[in-house]
C-alpha cells in the first residue's frame, strides 16, 4: 500500500465534467425519430379478479396503441429468482398499482387522460397487509402458506445455554418500508424492427437482468435483444429489478406499434408502483452472563415481501446472515421467513436486508447493556468478532479485523464518554434532552454464499484502432463511482495515465456479463477482474514484442494501436475465480457466507426537543474499515450519502400504507433529509487491504446504510430513558410515548 500512483488518489469522476455542465444525457433527455409515449393502466384494488375493462368516452381510442397480456409473444413473466411476477395482469390482481394495460400515443399530454378513462370492474378478494396478517395464514395470497422463503441458521447448542445465563434479555424490533427516492424516476425507450430486433435504452443497474427477462418475454433470440444503460440518476437498489418491468412494457408497445416508445414515470407513479425496502420484524431472545459475555441468541427475523417473490429470498438471506451482528455468538439460532402481502413487491435497497436485522441486534445490545448494568461500548467490546473466531454461519474470520480499534477511535473522535456523562447529568427536567449512541456492524461484500460462483462474471479490456484503452464491463455507473474506480484500477495495472483509459457504455451487445451492479461487489469483485484483464493486455503486448520493460502512456497506446493494426484486435478477458478454501453449504446455510466483510462503528449525537418531540442529529462520527480506499473523495461521498439515507430511515421517511397502496407518494409528504437536517458527518477510514480484492479493496456502498438508524435510536433512548424499538421514529411516536408524562412543567411551556 502507498506505492500506487493512481489507486488511492482523488482523481476526478470520469463523467464529472458532463454532469456539472448539465450535458450528461439521461433517458428523458433522449428522443428518437418517430418516437411515441407509453403509459400504464394500473389496478386500483389490492386483490381481486378482473371482470370487465371499458374504454370510456371522450378519448380518440383509435389513435392509441393498446397492449395487454395477450400481446406478449413469450412468457408473461419478469424473470427474477422465481418466475411468479407477471409483466401484465391476465386475470387476477395481487396488489394496488399492478400493471394491467399499456397505452401509447404521440401526444404524451393525452396519456394521463386516457389512463383515467379506462374503467376496470373487479370481483374483490380478501387481501393481507402486514407480516402478522400474512403469518396468521387465514387468508392465503401466495403459494400454500404465504411464505416466499425461509432459512434456519444454527450454531452450537442454543437450548442448553439458557440455564447458564445470568440474564435473559428479550426484545422485538421493527423497521418500516423505505422509498429509494433517486432523483431521476424510472424511464426507458424501446425500439424494435424485425431485422435488428429489440433495443432498450434505460435508467438501470443491471443490463443483463433486463436482457434475460426480455428474451423470455419476447421469445426473441439472445442476439436480437440489446440493452443499453444510459446515464442513470441514482438507483440505490431501486433500479435492480424494476427496469425489467418498465423495459418489458415499452418493448411490448414498440413491437405492437412499430415505433420507438418512451415510458417515463412521474414521481407519484414511481413512488406508488415501484419497489421499496422490505419492512421487517425481529424478535431476539439472548442469554448473557453478568460480566457481559454473550452466551446464546434465538432470533426470529421476518420480512414483508409484497405480492411477488422477486428478490425477497436473497434479501432475507442477507438479513438472516447479518442478524447476529459483528459478535461472536457461541450458540445462535436464526429462523427467518419472507411473507407475501398484497402491496407492490418490495425489492433491493442499499443494504439488502442487513439494515433491518442489524437495527434489531444493535438496539438489542444497548438493552442488554442496560439490563446487566454495563456500558454499551464495553458490552460490545467484550464480544466482537476477531481473526480466528467464527460468525453465525461458522465462517472463520481469516483476515485481520480490529473492531476494538474502530470502537476506540470512534469513541475518542465523538468524545463519547465525556458527553454521555455530561448528558446524563444535564437531562433531568431539561427542555432539550441530549443523547449519544453507538452502533457496531459488518457488511458482507459481494454475493452471498455460492452467488459469485454462479454469476461466473467476466470482464474485459480492449484497445480501439486509434490506441484508446477501454474497460469492458456490464457494471453500471449511477453515482457511486463505478466508471472512475474501474478506470483507476486499469490505469494502475497498466502503468499509464488515468486519462488514457475509457470505459465502454454498458451495452449488452458490446460488453461481457460482469454480473449485476449490486451487493457492494463492484470495487472488490469487478475491480479484481478488471485488474486481471489489464494485466493480460499488458502481457499480450509484451509477448508480441510491442512493449518493453518500461513505457510512457504514449508508448503504451502506440503499442496497443500497432497491435490492433497488425492483428486486428487487442483484447483481454478475465473470469471470476473464487478465493481458495471457500466453502458454502446452501442446504444448511453454513460456511463462508462472504469473501470479505467491511466493518464499522458509528456514533450519533442527538437532541430531543421535549416540547415538539422533534429529534435532530447534532453530530455523526463514522469510522470504518473497507479494505483499501480506491478513491478517497468518492469513498467519503459514499459513506456520507449512506449516513444521510440512514438518518432519513431512522427519523423522517415513513411510507403511509392504505390497503397496500402508498398514500404519500409525493416529495411533499414523504420526507427525506434536506441540507438543513444533516449534521456534520465525520468520516474516517482504517485501511486493511483485503488480499483478494482489487488493490486490497472490499465492498463499501451498502455498509453506511446499516449503522445510522440503530446509533440514532440508541441515542434517542439514551436521551429520553425510554426504549424506542421501531423506525421510522417520528415526533408523534415520541409524543405518544412521552406526551402523557410532561417532563417540562406546564408554565414553562407557555411562552
Amino acid at each position, binding site marked *: 500500500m502507498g506505492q500506487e500512483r493512481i489507486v488511492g488518489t482523488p482523481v476526478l469522476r470520469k463523467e464529472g465534467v458532463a454532469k456539472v455542465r*448539465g450535458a450528461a444525457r439521461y433517458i428523458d433527455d433522449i428522443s428518437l425519430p418517430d418516437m411515441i409515449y407509453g403509459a400504464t393502466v394500473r389496478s386500483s384494488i389490492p386483490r381481486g379478479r378482473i371482470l370487465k375493462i371499458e374504454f370510456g368516452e371522450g378519448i380518440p381510442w383509435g389513435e392509441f396503441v393498446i397492449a395487454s397480456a395477450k400481446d406478449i409473444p413469450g412468457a408473461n413473466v419478469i424473470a427474477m429468482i422465481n418466475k411468479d411476477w407477471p409483466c401484465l395482469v391476465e386475470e387476477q390482481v395481487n396488489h394496488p398499482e399492478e400493471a394491467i394495460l399499456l397505452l401509447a400515443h404521440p401526444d404524451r399530454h393525452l396519456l394521463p387522460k386516457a389512463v383515467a378513462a379506462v374503467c376496470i370492474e373487479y370481483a374483490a378478494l380478501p387481501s393481507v397487509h402486514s407480516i402478522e396478517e400474512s403469518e396468521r395464514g387465514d387468508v392465503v395470497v401466495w403459494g400454500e402458506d404465504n411464505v416466499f422463503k425461509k432459512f434456519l441458521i444454527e450454531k452450537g447448542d442454543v437450548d442448553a445455554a439458557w440455564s447458564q445465563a445470568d440474564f435473559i434479555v428479550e426484545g422485538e424490533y421493527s423497521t418500516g418500508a423505505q422509498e429509494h427516492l433517486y*432523483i431521476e424516476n424510472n424511464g426507458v425507450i424501446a425500439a424494435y424492427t424485425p431485422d435488428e430486433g429489440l433495443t432498450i435504452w434505460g435508467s438501470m443497474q443491471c443490463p443483463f437482468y433486463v436482457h434475460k427477462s426480455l428474451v423470455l418475454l419476447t421469445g426473441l433470440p439472445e442476439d436480437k435483444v440489446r440493452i443499453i444503460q444510459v446515464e442513470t*440518476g441514482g438507483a440505490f437498489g431501486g433500479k435492480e429489478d424494476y427496469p425489467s418491468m418498465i423495459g418489458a412494457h415499452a418493448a411490448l408497445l414498440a413491437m405492437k406499434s412499430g415505433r420507438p416508445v418512451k415510458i417515463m414515470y412521474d414521481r407519484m407513479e414511481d413512488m406508488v408502483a415501484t419497489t421499496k425496502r422490505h419492512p421487517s420484524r425481529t424478535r431476539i431472545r439472548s442469554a448473557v452472563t453478568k460480566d457481559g459475555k454473550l452466551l446464546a441468541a434465538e432470533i426470529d427475523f421476518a420480512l414483508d415481501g409484497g405480492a411477488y417473490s422477486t428478490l425477497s429470498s436473497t434479501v432475507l438471506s442477507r438479513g438472516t446472515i447479518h442478524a447476529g451482528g459483528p459478535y461472536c455468538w457461541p450458540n445462535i439460532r436464526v429462523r427467518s421467513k419472507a411473507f407475501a402481502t398484497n402491496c407492490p413487491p418490495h425489492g433491493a435497497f442499499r443494504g439488502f436486508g442487513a439494515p433491518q436485522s442489524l437495527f434489531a441486534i444493535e438496539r438489542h445490545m444497548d438493552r442488554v447493556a442496560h439490563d446487566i448494568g454495563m456500558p454499551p461500548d464495553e458490552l460490545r467490546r467484550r464480544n466482537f468478532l476477531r481473526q480466528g473466531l467464527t460468525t453465525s454461519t461458522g465462517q472463520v474470520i481469516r483476515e485481520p479485523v480490529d473492531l476494538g480499534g474502530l470502537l476506540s477511535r470512534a469513541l475518542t473522535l465523538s468524545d463519547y464518554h465525556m458527553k454521555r456523562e455530561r448528558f446524563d447529568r444535564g437531562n433531568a427536567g431539561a427542555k432539550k434532552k441530549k443523547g449519544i449512541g453507538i452502533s457496531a456492524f459488518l457488511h458482507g461484500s459481494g454475493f452471498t454464499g455460492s452467488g459469485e460462483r454462479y454469476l461466473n462474471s467476466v470482464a474485459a479490456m480492449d484497445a480501439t484502432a486509434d490506441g484508446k484503452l477501454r474497460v469492458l464491463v456490464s457494471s453500471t455507473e449511477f453515482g457511486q463511482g463505478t466508471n472512475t474506480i474501474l478506470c483507476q484500477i486499469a490505469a494502475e495495472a497498466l502503468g499509464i495515465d488515468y486519462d488514457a483509459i475509457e470505459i465502454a457504455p454498458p451495452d449488452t451487445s458490446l460488453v461481457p456479463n460482469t454480473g449485476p451492479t449490486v451487493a457492494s461487489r463492484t470495487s472488490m469483485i469487478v475491480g479484481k477482474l478488471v485488474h486481471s484483464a489489464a494485466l493480460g493486455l499488458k502481457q499480450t503486448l509484451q509477448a508480441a514484442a510491442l512493449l518493453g520493460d518500461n513505457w510512457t502512456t504514449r508508448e503504451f497506446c502506440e503499442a496497443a494501436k500497432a497491435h490492433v493494426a497488425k492483428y486486428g484486435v487487442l483484447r483481454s478477458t478475465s473470469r471470476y475465480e473464487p478465493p481458495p478454501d471457500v466453502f458454502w453449504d446452501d442446504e444448511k446455510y453454513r460456511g463462508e457466507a462472504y469473501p470479505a466483510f467491511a466493518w464499522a462503528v458509528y456514533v450519533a449525537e442527538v437532541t430531543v426537543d421535549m416540547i415538539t418531540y422533534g429529534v435532530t442529529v447534532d453530530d455523526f462520527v463514522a469510522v470504518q474499515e473497507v479494505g483499501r480506499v480506491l478513491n478517497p473523495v468518492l469513498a467519503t*461521498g459514499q459513506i*456520507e*450519502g449512506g449516513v*444521510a439515507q440512514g438518518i432519513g430511515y431512522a427519523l423522517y421517511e415513513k411510507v403511509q400504507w392504505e390497503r397496500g397502496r402508498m398514500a404519500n407518494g409525493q416529495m411533499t409528504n414523504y420526507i*427525506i433529509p434536506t*441540507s438543513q437536517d444533516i449534521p456534520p458527518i465525520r468520516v474516517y477510514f482504517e485501511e486493511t487491504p483485503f488480499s483478494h480484492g482489487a488493490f486490497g479493496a472490499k465492498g463499501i456502498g451498502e455498509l453506511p446504510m446499516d449503522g445510522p438508524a440503530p446509533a440514532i435510536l440508541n441515542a434517542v433512548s439514551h436521551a429520553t430513558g425510554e426504549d424506542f424499538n421501531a423506525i421510522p421514529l417520528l415526533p408523534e411516536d415520541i409524543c405518544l410515548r412521552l406526551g402523557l408524562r410532561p417532563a417540562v412543567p406546564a408554565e414553562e411551556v407557555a411562552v
Partner: protein
Amino acid sequence: MSLQFISLVVNGEARELEAYPMERLLDVLRDHLGLTGTKEGCGEGECGACSVLINGELVNSCLVPIAQANGTEIVTIEGIAASGQLHPAQRAFLECGGAQCGMCTPGMIVATVHLLKKYPQPDAEQIREGLNGNLCRCTGYMRIFEAVEKAAALEQAR
C-alpha cells in the same frame, strides 16, 4: 387555450417561440429549446432539480407557467459556463465530489451561483439555508457544502 407568442432571453440569447400559456417553463426549456440540462425530479416544486434563474431569482421551473416568464431573462445550467470554461462552482463540484448521480447537480449548481451572488463568502448556515430547496439523495450534502466553500474561494481569487 390557444398558442401564445413568447419571447425570452435564455442564457444571453434572445429566443422566440409559440407555446400554450400554461406550459411549464421546464418543458419549454427542455422540449422547445433543447436545453435538457434542467431536470425534472418531482414536478411539484419540492426537489429543486429544475432550478433556473429568472431575472436573477432562483425558481423551480416546473412551477412557472411560460406566460409568466414571458419577457424575462433566464439562466439555465447551460448558461453557467458561458465562456466554455467551467464556472468556479462547476469546478468546485467536480473537484470536491459534489456531483454523484448528477441529477440534482444542474439545479444545485444554479442554486450555488445564486447563493454566491447573495453571499460571496457564505457561512455554514447560509449555505445550508441557501440550498435547502435542492434535494440530493446521493451525497449527504457534505461534499456539496465543501464545493460551495471552494467555489466562493475560487470566485474571490478570480
